[in-house]
Each structure stands twice: as structure tokens, then as C-alpha cells.
């Protein structure tokens, strides 16, 4: 995601519509992708997020939701995966 939006190679008519080119940012993005330690990766992503805000490259407006509705009396145990994208029906059942 950060690569799509902030990497210099995507800045000329690509997905980086801020047309933002900064070798420091490129380096931060490349380095983050190579980190296997989750804590270090998180720190690297935090630094990228902070830089984006300091330089005001993008205005963040709303976290979107996925919203589903079920018939409560007829269906049991419809849940979503952690990303709220996929309904999981393996545990689900229906009442006659």
C-alpha cells in the first residue's frame, strides 16, 4: 500500500497521484519490505506514516466498513475474517 502511494517509481501518472518523489521515502519503503521481525517492521511502517503526515501528502478521511445483514432467526454463526472482507460460513447453520 505505501509502495503504491508513495514510491517514486509510481509517481509519473501511476498510483502515486501525489507525484511525490523522495529518495529517503523510497529507502524507507524498501527497507520495511525486507524486515522479517514484526516489531521492527511495525516501527518502520510507523516512521513512514509519520513522514506522510509531516509532509501532508494525503488527507485521510474515513476508515471504511463492510456491512452485511442476516436473518437472525434463520441463520446462525455468520462471522467475518479479521479483515472484515470475507464472510465465513463453515461454522454457519440454518434453522428450518
Amino acid at each position, binding site marked *: *500500500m505505501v509502495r503504491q*502511494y508513495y514510491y517514486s517509481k509510481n509517481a509519473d*501518472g501511476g498510483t502515486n*497521484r*501525489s*507525484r*511525490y518523489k523522495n529518495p529517503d521515502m523510497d529507502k524507507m519503503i524498501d527497507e520495511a*519490505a*525486507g*524486515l*522479517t521481525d*514484526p516489531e521492527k*517492521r*511495525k516501527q518502520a*511502517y*510507523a516512521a513512514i*506514516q*509519520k513522514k*506522510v*503526515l509531516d*509532509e*501532508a501528502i*494525503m*488527507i*485521510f*478521511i*474515513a*476508515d*471504511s*466498513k*463492510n*456491512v*452485511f*445483514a*442476516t*436473518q*437472525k*432467526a*434463520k*441463520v*446462525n*454463526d*455468520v*462471522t*467475518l*475474517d*479479521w*479483515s*472484515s*472482507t*470475507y*464472510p*465465513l*460460513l463453515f*461454522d*454457519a*447453520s*440454518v*434453522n*428450518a
Partner: protein
Amino acid sequence: MASPVAGASPAAGASPVAAAGAAPAGAPPVGKPGGELIYALATRFDSLDVNVTTFSVVGRMGFHLFDQLVREPSAGKFVPSLAERWDVNPTADEYTFYLRKDVKFHDGTPFNAEAVKYTFDRIVNPDMKSQVALSLIGPYDSSTVVDPYTVKVKFKTGYAPFLDSVAQPFLSIVSPTAAEKYGKDFGTNPVGTGPFKFDSYKTDSEVKLVKNPDYTWAPAIYRHTGGPYLNAITWRIINDPATRVAALKAGEVHVIEDLPLQNYAEFQGNSAFQIVEGVMAGSGYSAMINVTKPPTDDVKVRQAMEWATDKAGIIKATWNGLFQPACSVLTSITFGYDQSTCQVYSYDPKKAADLLDQAGWKLDGDVRKKNGEELVIKFYYRADQPVNVSQATFIQASWQQVGIKVELNGLAQAGYFDAVRRGDHNMQP
């Protein structure tokens, strides 16, 4: 505004937020056996071939037709599925998966390391024209069958997010026998190892899946072992939101996706229905600011735009107030999201005005000017997207109060893409 991008969340960590409608972890499911569940899909799709599709709704069916090497119970946490365990080397360019030995595809083909290699090689085969799966597989180099149940996957460069990728439905393992047999028609004859088998597809209308009676390898993200309770799932395509809502109310379908937000309060207040919802992983709605085009080449002007943005107001006007304000490029449930981003800006028109003063943009009547020129932000967006129109209109009225003039350029899709690729915009969704 940017259509939210469903998310690649890299590697471990993060505190997940359970979907509001989810049952408490560990609570046993009701588990009434038998019956058919009818699910209303909101969109048509291209193909049931998860390795090829560009539609996330295909992933919704794909999680039932197919299995993946690992599953992700919460952001960045992984549990075994078709792989019993795995190793990653320190540079994250070599992953070794040790596979289950008791799994077979719906067509009887045994699941093994060859099937994994076949699937990943298939995704990077240019003839397949894979898109989502291809981007998820990243700098894939090759797979090696170490022994019948061990496969080594190599990357050209370190690729820490790969476990997240293989946990997604798009990197599901397909039956090599069926993929060879059906070729391009695998998309209408999908064969996996999942808890449900493909039964039938009526083009642009309905997909029917039936229970896989041999299924004994459910991953631990679920709350029961053995096979699924349902005998069948029918996925009915109902494009029109009002028709979808009417079908649920009439009892013709059990579950609908994409509940229109104008119906939210009504369903929430009605005990016959249950809302199941959650914040999406990835990126939410945002506006990108062009840092190369005056006046937004000045960081002070851009920062002023940040302070001048009334997110709560936009959310109220656009989504009935149902979404949470965003602070970062990553949504609050996504791996790597940094909570301190919420401390950087808030809605403060006074601070916006001060920054613009500092940048030399002085109020002259209703609009700020510098060297005789008005402070104009060219906002390009798609006029056929009501969400974009709502936000653009709100921002124009709101920023007027700090002396920023917003020029609205609502265009048809093609014209919009041409303009923003050229960089005509100061701002775009």
C-alpha cells in the same frame, strides 16, 4: 474517496478488532446440521478461478471452495491450514512449507507439494493474465518440490508479506488435474480442497456449492472440526441494493452483503435481522495532494488543508456518520497501523488560517491571495461516484471558511483518469 483497497497486511503483530457481528472466540457454534444457506452477492464477477480473478467477491466464495496453505485469524497472526508448519529464512526470500498428508481435491487428486508448485507457477504464467494473485505473490522466483509433502518457495528479493498473501483466497491451491483438464474453463469448473464443492453456475445469476463429505482438515480459525454443517450454499447475484434489501426482508435470502448505509438504522433497530460488520483492512477513503503543482507544492499549504478538513463533518454528510475518521494510510485494524498518527492533525480552522498567513496567502475579501493570485485548489473526482461528489461538495463549502477556493472538476471516468494521470489536479480522491 480513493476506493478503499483491501489489504495486504504484512507479517505478524497488531491488535485486531473483532468484527462487531462475530460470535465470541471459542463459543461453540449452534451447529444445526443440514439445509441450504442463500447468500446475496452484490456484484457479478469474472471467473471462479481464484488465481485469476480481479473480484474480491470471488474470494468470498473461494474461501469455501478452496483451502490455503495458512490462515490468518487476526492481522499478522498465522495458523496451519494445508501447511502443518513452515519455516522462513532470515532474509525472507525462502519459505519452506511442510504439508498435510491427508488431503485430497474434490476430483480425487491427492493434495501435495506438486499441487502447490503447480498453483504458484500457474499464477506467474503470463498466459493466465492473473492480476490480484500475481500482485500478492510479489517477487516470486520458483517453487521446488523437496519431497512429496515439502515445498520450498523462493523469491527474487526478501518478501516478508508472503504469509499474509498465502492466507488470502487468491493464492488458494487448485487441483492440477482439473486446471489442466479445463484450461481456460477452470473458472466455471473450479476444483479445490475446500469444505464445499462446486455444483453449478448460472452465468451472472447464481453459484451453487455443496458440502464436501470428505472434509476433515478444517483450519483452527473455525470453531468446530469435521465437515461443514450446511448441505449447500447458493450465492445469488442481486446487483440492485434495494432489491437485495427487499429479498432479505421477504426471507428469500439469508444473508446480504453491502447493506446500503441508508438502511443501516432500520436494520439495527429490527430484531429480525442482525448486522455483521467490521472495519476493512488496508486503506480507507482519502484524498491525495499533488506535491508538484502550485499552490500545493508548498508544504504549508498542504498542512493547512489537513487542519482545515472536518472529517466528522464529511463522514456525517457522506456515510450517515457510520464510519470512523481515518488518521493514517492504514486503517485501524491493519498490521503496522500507528495510533500516534491520530495526534498529528485535528479539525482546527484557526491553525489552517495561521499556516496560510505564514505561507503568504492573505485573506482578501472571501478568498486568500498571494501576488494577486487567488488560492485555488483544483479538485478532480469522478462525477458518477456519489461518495466523491458528496465529499467534494462538503470540502468546497467547508474550506471557503478559511479562504481556500475549491474548484470542482467532476468528470466522467475516462476524462478523470486522463486528468489525474497528467497531474492536472491539486487534489483527487
